[in-house]
């Protein structure tokens, strides 16, 4: 068993709080629940104007990109704070897919083409997402690579690709390495997603030309590292989502009167919400630990990420479910935003590995093997 590092920093720095304030203010102005719902109903959930301000205005897109490539040279700790706020607003933006997963993959490729893409990505000029299923987990076998039919002409399909419809460039894992493929050259078939705020598509390539970014071994290592970061930072999105559900539900039960008293004065409801608060406080510690372990490239990071994912997925789902239940009939309506959070939470619990998958990783890393 690996020793836990004594220097794990689980607090938020002043800079991180300033970043949170900026992102929260932007989302309050441009990403109110009614706006998110209206966009989802229109079939085009992504908001390009919101994205431009978040990506280049605030500079959130390049947090993980080094300064020499035009990024902020920040760390997973700052990206985690952005994701907390995006989760709190169920914001329909390609941040986790583009600014965490694709960015980490590109950072693992040591080629000029990858560096060029990182520059465009950090500046918010281009959106780039990996052509991998959203369910792809760290430590799980990768899907069958697409086929290079000669000279980087790629053929095959990738399913359940999140945010592909918002992307300019797709990162495609093929048998001869990793390729950047213009999204315009691919056929995207939109699916009907459970989570209305994160569109899914099947990506089909038929001899589509791509630019090679890495050889197969480098590509696989880069993808593995990116999946670890993605899973670790998803915990922060789940934390923000759970916090919104808790805050919203507490406000509701304080104001809603039945039996001539606020329903929040009934002990049955108080105990449920107190337990949920405890869960959210614990999720914060787990998510912060994962972000800090990734930021410091701790050897303990794989275990800390697995712990955070095994814990935070359940908390987010529970928070959203409690939000629906404790809102009563209101929580069951299409009009109230609770369902957007429930759908995101449930979908997030499948993204980047289920709780069960991450418990299996904990068994490996903590040396608690399954029965023979």
């Amino acid at each position, binding site marked *: 068993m690996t020793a836990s590092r004594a220097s*794990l920093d689980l607090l938020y720095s002043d800079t991180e709080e300033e970043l949170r304030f900026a992102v929260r203010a932007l989302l309050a102005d441009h990403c109110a629940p009614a706006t998110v719902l209206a966009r989802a109903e229109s079939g085009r959930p992504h908001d390009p104007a919101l994205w431009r301000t978040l990506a280049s205005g605030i500079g959130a897109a390049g947090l993980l990109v080094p300064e020499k490539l035009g990024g902020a040279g920040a760390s997973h700790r700052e990206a985690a704070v952005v994701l907390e706020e995006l989760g709190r607003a169920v914001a329909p933006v390609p941040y986790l897919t583009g600014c965490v997963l694709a960015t980490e993959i590109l950072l693992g490729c040591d080629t000029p083409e990858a560096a060029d893409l990182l520059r465009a990505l950090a500046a918010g000029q281009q959106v780039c997402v990996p052509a991998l299923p959203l369910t792809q987990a760290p430590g799980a076998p990768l899907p069958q690579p697409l086929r290079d039919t000669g000279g980087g002409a790629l053929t095959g399909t990738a399913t359940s690709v999140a945010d592909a419809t918002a992307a300019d460039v797709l990162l495609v894992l093929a048998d001869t390495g990793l390729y950047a493929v213009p999204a315009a050259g691919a056929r995207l078939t939109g699916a009907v997603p459970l989570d209305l705020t994160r569109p899914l598509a099947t990506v089909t390539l038929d001899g589509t030309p791509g630019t090679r970014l890495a050889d197969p071994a480098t590509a696989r290592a880069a993808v593995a590292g990116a999946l670890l970061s993605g899973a670790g930072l998803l915990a922060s999105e789940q934390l923000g989502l759970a916090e919104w559900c808790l805050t919203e539900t507490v406000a509701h039960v304080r104001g809603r009167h039945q039996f001539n008293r606020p329903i929040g004065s009934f*002990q049955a409801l108080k105990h449920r919400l107190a337990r949920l608060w*405890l869960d959210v406080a614990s999720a914060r*510690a787990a998510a912060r630990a994962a972000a800090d372990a990734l930021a410091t490239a701790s050897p303990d990071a794989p275990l800390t990420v697995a712990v955070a994912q095994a814990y935070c997925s359940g908390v987010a789902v529970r928070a959203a479910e409690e939000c629906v239940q404790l809102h009563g009939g209101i929580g069951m309506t299409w009009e109230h935003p609770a369902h957007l959070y429930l759908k995101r939470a449930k979908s997030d619990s499948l993204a980047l590995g289920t709780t069960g998958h991450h418990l299996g990783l904990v068994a490996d890393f903590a040396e608690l093997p399954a029965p023979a």
Partner: protein
Amino acid sequence: MTPTAEDLAARTRALLAAHPPATTSRPDFLAARFDAGLAWVHYPEGLGGLGAPRSLQAVVDAELEAAGAPDNDPRRIGIGLGMAAPTILAYGTEEQKRRFLRPLWLGEEVWCQLFSEPGAGSDLAALGTRAVLDDTTGEWVVDGQKVWTSSAHTARWAILIARTDPTLPKHRGITYFLCDMHAPGVEVRPLRQITGEAEFNEVFLTGVRIPDAHRLGAVGQGWAVARTTLMNERVSIGGMRIPREGGMIGPVAAVWRERPQLRTHALHQRLLGLWVEAEVARLTGERLRQQLVAGQPGPEGSGMKLTFARLNQEISGLEVELLGEEGLLYGDWTLRRPETVDFTGRDAGYRYLRAKGNSIEGGTSEILLNIVAERVLGLPAEPRDDKDIAWKDLAR
């Protein structure tokens, strides 16, 4: 001028130079430390302190630990240090502070707490032990029964709350006393608990006479004084850094690793779930500790006891099952009276049974959930009708 960290380090080194731990007896060293104001630096001068910020105690402790100095065995005198002393400091007369604090800190006089009663647990303010003033002698005469009293059999003194006016609503008719445990009429009986041990006692008070000079605070002010005691009870929680697998999960994980023949798939899933929860609880405690160090205490402290109570119970329950046939056995049922509490010692069966108390002692989990809901989340209190009724008219 309040002393700085440098001042305190210098004073501690001077103490160590004048009273080298290697050649000084433990009682002499502790007495010299108290008189140098290095016992609890946030206490006033002359009472074992120097009026320094409480956080600077760590400076003194680090110097003393490095020099191998003896301590005052805080586990043995925890109730005195954690509960009686801060209350005496806050409400005591000068005479009471001078009389009681020094022997308390030195461990010469052990303290216990006479608060809970068979009829007053979560609703402590409903307590029925009576104290009546004897006008002829100016003494209080106390009759009643207290329960769940740890250290009563070793204690010389007790902090005691009793009802002095049953015609007032329950919170207003209580007075706080310092009770001599050697006084006639104090009877201590071991209270055997489900583990077979008797960590606690029942204390029967029959015509016990307490001089008015041992009343702490004004007559009828006892509830406010008791709140000071109870708030200090919770301060100590959540201060320590715990290593991974440092709690109850450690022994179970060790059994899992060492004895593969006991493993099943169902137990594996439960073990992993609890391992993750224990690790997250550890991180939550560590985050709370970092907040305290940074001077930004968060409300998480009020929740940690809830989490640990539940986890200790689930983990120890899993351990008994994991052990299979061995889980049918128990170390032994001898009625012992341990001087300090040990939550994790002994075997799995003991841990399982002792952990049941974790969600009852020091505030039940149900009451703590109410506290979190009301003080952290701002949810309204349940409507209640007991606040304005005379104590004597309450249902019981």
